[in-house]
């Protein structure tokens, strides 16, 4: 058993999915222990693969294991696994967060209807996500890509009795599908140019210049469209906040830590192609910057705690794309890892709050919960500071890395934009924490009945808080080495051909980064201290237009609605007109009418008189005979 058998990681949860989906209803407790067992075994397998990978002599080269899948004429398709440091890191993130979320769900989902189904789909999700990151060819990536999309759809719409949940599930599925079509087109374009789906072969072909410049740019942009859809980048970001209709553990696992980073992962995987294609990296950077900035603004005016976290997630995904735009996948993956830990922590923390307050997630009804829920409060505090980017918590190190790389690659203008986004991140995170956990309670009745969640929920919170606090430190050479990675995480993951760079503190940027976080935190603390809305209300009233714009998220949803109303419905009207009057009235009804009319005329030949028929037969015979003679000559 080694890195070659990594496919087992996906196969085990998939097997448990089948068991849970088929027999979960009959099992005691809905088989939730099987869910936890499944994820824990995936985690153990991950450790085995990791150890084997690090022990392999040589230079941490990728471990490939593929088999011939189909062989049709000229076309041969091989599918298999491709294990390299990026995959290993993703394995770690997915399995660790999944274990925590599964354990947490045992407490959070207790007594919910379709309890077993929740765990079943969770296993399917983990299996598909692991498959996605280990796939060695784009076709397999696409299959896994759609599978995680389906799981996301099923879990967002888990409470399908609620209309808003089904609407959100539909919206998520259709919005990401828009991007997925692009991804499929991109994959086909690459296949046309190279004749293979294998990622490494495509990268090789692109680097050798076997693909024309424009063709390469267009195809990689199509692929990137898929990444944007899955990772909810502007303008596809609209589905992620709505996806918060799903159960909160799902939001933590799928819509914060793992599935939404699939786009980041795929872009990182294909980054050599982005580097070859002229201008592609700039597009990635611009998309990331736009998203980080816009969602920062949007998060400022949200009052639903999960929505704030959702916008923050989109923003942080923007940060990751900015990191990719600098051509450093290691930094993006590093930020992905730290973000997965602290954002999963924040989501599970909000889940704990929602559970404790009997499904209350509006800030206007919360406040002052720290004393009631000390463990949730403390862990949430750690997560918030990590998100805001205070040293030595995880978020600081990865964000700092992004700023340094961004400055090297694109210069000060990009740093300024992203810096502003970082200030806003710190601001809304602090606002979220203060309005939920500090000051006086806004609704005494809610406050009264709140109690700390049980250990099955606080345990994962504490573990994730630990990770959120220290996981950033692996950036240091010594820490990484101590953990068995040769030279820390930034040297562990790097592009082939790129020289690995060793982390060192850039004091100027570290100070600036710290200053940004502090400004944001102080600003929010000044405005909301003691959970008082006096200052923020004054600010909102000072310029109600701006406030309304933020509150309605820059009118993106309205814009889409208008496009759908005018464009799609207008076109549908045209199509329906064509269907009604051309296809139906002329084509279908028309042929029936012609037949009916002809029959109406010809029926008079049917006299019912035998002599007429006899005469017709006789004349027919004579006619045929004459005709035959004439033709014969």
């Amino acid at each position, binding site marked *: 058993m080694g890195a070659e058998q990594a496919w087992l990681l996906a196969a085990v949860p998939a097997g448990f999915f089948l068991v849970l989906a088929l027999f979960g209803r009959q099992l005691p407790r809905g088989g939730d222990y099987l869910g936890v067992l499944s994820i824990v075994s995936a985690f153990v397998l991950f450790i085995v693969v990791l150890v084997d990978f690090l022990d392999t002599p040589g230079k941490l080269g990728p471990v490939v294991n593929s088999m011939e899948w189909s062989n049709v004429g000229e076309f041969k398709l091989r599918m298999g696994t491709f294990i390299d440091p990026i995959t290993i890191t993703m394995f770690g993130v997915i399995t660790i967060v999944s274990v925590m979320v599964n354990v947490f769900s045992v407490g959070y989902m207790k007594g919910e209807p379709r309890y077993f189904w929740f765990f079943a789909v969770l296993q399917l999700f983990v299996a598909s996500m692991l498959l996605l990151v280990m796939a060695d060819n784009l076709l397999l990536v696409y299959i896994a890509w759609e599978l995680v999309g389906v799981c996301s759809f099923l879990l967002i719409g888990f409470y399908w009795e609620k209309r808003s949940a089904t609407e959100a599930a539909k919206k998520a599925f259709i919005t990401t599908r828009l991007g997925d079509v692009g991804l499929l087109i991109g994959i086909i374009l690459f296949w046309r140019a190279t004749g293979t789906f294998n990622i490494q072969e495509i990268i090789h072909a692109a680097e050798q210049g076997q693909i024309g410049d424009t063709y390469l740019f267009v195809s990689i942009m199509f692929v990137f469209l898929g990444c944007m859809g899955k990772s909810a980048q502007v303008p596809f970001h609209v589905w992620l906040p709505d996806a918060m209709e799903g159960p909160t553990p799902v939001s933590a696992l799928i819509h914060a830590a793992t599935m939404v980073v699939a786009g980041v992962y795929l872009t990182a995987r294909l980054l050599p192609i982005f580097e070859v294609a002229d201008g592609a990296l700039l597009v990635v950077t611009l998309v990331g910057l736009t998203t980080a900035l816009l969602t920062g603004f949007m998060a400022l005016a949200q009052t639903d705690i999960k929505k704030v976290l959702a916008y923050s997630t989109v923003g942080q995904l923007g940060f990751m794309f900015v990191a990719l735009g600098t051509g450093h996948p290691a930094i993006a993956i590093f930020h992905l890892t730290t973000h997965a830990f602290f954002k999963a922590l924040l989501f599970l923390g909000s889940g704990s709050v929602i559970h404790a307050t009997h499904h209350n997630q509006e800030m206007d009804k919360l406040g002052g919960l720290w004393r009631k829920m000390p463990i949730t409060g403390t862990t949430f505090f750690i997560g918030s500071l990590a998100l805001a980017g205070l040293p030595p918590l995880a978020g600081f190190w990865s964000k700092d890395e992004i700023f340094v790389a961004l400055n090297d690659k694109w210069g000060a203008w990009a740093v300024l934009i992203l810096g502003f986004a970082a200030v806003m991140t710190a601001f809304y995170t602090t606002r979220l924490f203060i309005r939920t956990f500090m000051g006086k309670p806004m609704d005494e009745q809610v406050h009264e009945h709140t109690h700390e969640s049980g250990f099955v929920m606080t345990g994962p919170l504490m573990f994730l808080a630990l990770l959120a606090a220290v996981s950033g430190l692996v950036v240091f050479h010594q820490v990484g080495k101590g953990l068995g990675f040769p030279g820390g995480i930034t040297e562990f993951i790097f592009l082939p051909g790129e020289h690995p760079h060793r982390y060192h503190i850039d004091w100027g940027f570290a100070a600036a980064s710290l200053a940004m976080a502090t400004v944001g935190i102080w600003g929010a603390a000044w405005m909301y201290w003691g959970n008082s809305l006096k200052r923020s209300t004054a600010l909102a009233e000072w310029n109600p237009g701006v406030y309304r714009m933020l509150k309605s998220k820059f009118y993106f949803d309205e814009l889409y609605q208008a496009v759908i109303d005018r464009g799609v419905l207008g076109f549908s009207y045209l199509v329906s007109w064509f269907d009604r009057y051309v296809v139906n009235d002329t084509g279908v009804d028309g042929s029936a009418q012609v037949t009916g009319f002809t029959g109406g005329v010809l029926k008079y030949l049917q006299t019912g008189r035998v*002599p007429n028929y006899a005469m017709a037969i006789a004349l027919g015979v004579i006619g045929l005979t004459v005709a035959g003679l004439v033709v014969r000559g």
Partner: protein
Amino acid sequence: MVPLENYLVLSAIIFSLGVYGVLARRNAVLILMSVELMLNAVSLNFIAFAAYLDPDKITGAIFAVFVITVAAAEVGLALAIVIRLFRNRATSNVDEAAIMKW
């Protein structure tokens, strides 16, 4: 020996008489009889051709026997229909049995 043409002419005359009967008569039984005439004309043709063209074989005679069999069966069926018609309408005039129409 009587030449073949004579048989054929006779057969054509009988057949034409049959056709005339079918077209001109209004009584169902008479129409049936006319049909029998036509069938017999055909049988006569079979036998004449068989005797003249291939005298060693009896192919034509076998066909004639088949035609007679079919004719017998047909008459049995048709007379049954005529009887039903007569029972229902008290007539055997085919002009009055004209309800099978639009």
